């Protein structure tokens, strides 16, 4: 049994070491956000002075960096996007998994092809289309862009629907239920994990995207989302004196997302494994 104890001890040691490496950058962000002295680069890790000044700076409002406004913008965009994309993705996945019709396979193949184009390729064209209908620099445009493509992310949800036994549908059909009733009253209540997974992914996207939002919002600082807002703090002239404020902002957005993520981790694993197992 002695051999086991040693190997157990080593395994724990290795895991703790690895966990430290993984968590270190996160801890460093938090420490930096409270650091009272210095600029972008300091040659040590533990701050010499602690301050809340950087958090205060963010909340006191500054016309170039209206943090609270960015936060509200992102929140509105992500809530609406989350609702719309979840509806779109789930309907698309359900149709392609369950309903039989002539265009089923062609639609699936075309979607697969479409997802293989780099997303940036169409970015400029989307911008000009939105400009043609005078929608650029608005939150509505951002919601449209984030939600419209959602239908193409149906593969994981479809994998999930494929695992729900078809006999349920058939027995309901014999009882005279219409297809819409089967979808809303039988399939959806059984699909909580995948709905939560889809919603979670859609909710997080606007907090993380800094390319599309930037292209659509241009220089309208008032309409920025948090990601491009924080990113705009890191320009060459601002990076040094705003660095701690930037990390403070990062902490403020990372905390809610992380909590949400840990809380919903179970659904994430179920979603991702059901999709990957079933292709």
């Amino acid at each position, binding site marked *: 049994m002695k051999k086991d104890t040693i190997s157990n001890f080593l395994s724990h040691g*290795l*895991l703790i070491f690895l966990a430290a490496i993984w968590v270190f950058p996160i801890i460093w962000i938090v420490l930096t956000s409270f650091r009272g002295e210095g600029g972008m680069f300091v040659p040590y890790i533990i701050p010499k002075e602690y301050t809340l000044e950087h958090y205060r700076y963010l909340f006191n409002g500054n016309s170039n960096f209206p943090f609270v406004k960015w936060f509200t913008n992102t929140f509105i965009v992500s809530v609406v996007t989350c609702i719309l994309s979840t509806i779109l*993705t789930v*309907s698309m996945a359900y149709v392609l998994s369950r*309903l039989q019709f002539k265009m089923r396979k062609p639609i699936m193949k075309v979607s697969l092809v*479409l997802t293989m184009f780099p997303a*940036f390729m169409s970015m400029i064209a989307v911008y000009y*289309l939105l400009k043609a209908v005078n929608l650029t620099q608005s939150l509505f445009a951002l919601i449209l862009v984030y939600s419209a493509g959602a239908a193409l992310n149906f593969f994981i949800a479809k994998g999930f629907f494929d695992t729900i036994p078809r006999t349920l549908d058939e027995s309901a059909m014999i009882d005279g239920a219409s297809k819409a009733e089967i979808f809303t009253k039988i399939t959806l209540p059984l699909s909580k994990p995948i709905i939560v997974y889809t919603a979670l992914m859609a909710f997080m996207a606007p907090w993380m995207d800094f390319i599309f939002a930037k292209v659509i919002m241009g220089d309208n600082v008032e309409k920025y989302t948090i990601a491009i807002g924080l990113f705009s703090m890191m320009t060459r002239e601002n990076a040094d004196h705003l660095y701690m404020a930037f990390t403070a902002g990062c902490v403020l957005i990372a905390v809610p997302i992380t909590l949400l993520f840990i809380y919903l981790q179970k659904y994430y*694993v179920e979603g991702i494994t059901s999709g990957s197992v079933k*292709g």
Partner: protein
Amino acid sequence: MSQIGSTISSSLKQYSAFFKEGSGVRNLSFIIMGASHLSKGQLIKGSLFLSAEIGFILFMILQGFSAIGGLLTLGTAQQGWVMDEELGIEVLAKGDNSMLMLIYGIVAITLCILFICVYHAHFKSMQYISDLEKKGLAIPSFKDDVKSLLDDKFHITLLAIPVIGVLVFTVIPLIYMISIAFTSFDHNHLPPKNLFDWVGFANFSNILTGRMAGTFFPLLGWTLTWAFMATATSFIFGVLLALLINKKGIKGKAVFRTLFVLTMAVPQFVSLLIMRNLLHASGPVNVFLEDIGLISAPIPFLTDGLIAKLSVITINMWIGIPVTMLVATGILMNLPSDQIEAAKIDGANGFQILKSITFPQILFVMTPSLIQQFVGNINNFNVIYLLTEGGPVNSNYYSAGETDLLVTWLYKLTIETADYNIASVIGIITFVLSAVFSLFVYTRSNSFKKEDGLG
């Protein structure tokens, strides 16, 4: 293609057969849509078809024909200074805007195709009614039609909005960008100041054999190396980490798992910008290494070509390993243990079991997600852009650096240098790369053979 051709010819045969068989109002419907429906009392449906046709004809007369014509020429009148006789000075005369003409042209053609679909649906509906009449059944009322959208035609209800969304925000923009690849839309031909024109395959040959080849091939090589290394390292070490965490006797499994998963929840632009800062010449890592005397000068983690390449692959593990770990954990818990038991009885050691049983089992289940990751890494914009912005700059390349992937080069070509045509070609090539690789591996993998893939 031949499939589409045969579908069209069979439809046309149906049309002519139906036309010969019918008479009067029903054949009038071929020209005036909805006439037959209106005459049979389907007022709402009939007027919907009629208004679709009127709307389409109005659109074509007012905008459509000129838009499609513009698509062929992409503009003829260049913006320039013209002498205004009345004022006696030169004024700026607005020219054609090639870019807008291209977009409008594509939209017009899309509307034409949509109209053909509506026309075909109209024809099908007439056919359906005449079938019902022959059998002596009642013609469905508008209410019945709406009801069927929740039952037999439920797929139409559910698909309508997603398909429109994808059409407008993905398909049309993609067609537009693909068209750009065949034009001369670069920094010398920027609308509205200048016109651009169709140039055929000139951009493709420019990239494959011409001026851009010296940038394209090195970047292509690096993109493939990167995608392979990034996927492989994340996969192997992710599985190993999952095995380590799930080993018998490890305490606090959930805590360790959560610590690693924590990193997935932090937005990449945050964690990667922080990494970049940590690895900077005057950042903490270099200062620390200098202080303990390991190095005498800062290591150029992200500013030397080769080291930067190694750095981005290494840092990518920080992002990729937890993802694989999470998925592999889920799989490990469901793996059958009888094979392992049998191997143990036969005297296999831990490494042999891992190599010959556990790894292949995980690989089998994860093949589809590995392909996704590989394709995702070919398109991995975030890691490269946030860490190095493609740098360090290589003066032999056109507007690209040592660590640039094809996608980050594409981004630079559109945002920085405005060479849209080259960027489009790169996009198309990246697409072909992803598609070929996915199909190749997908059809050969065990999980495709055993399950029916697309289902």
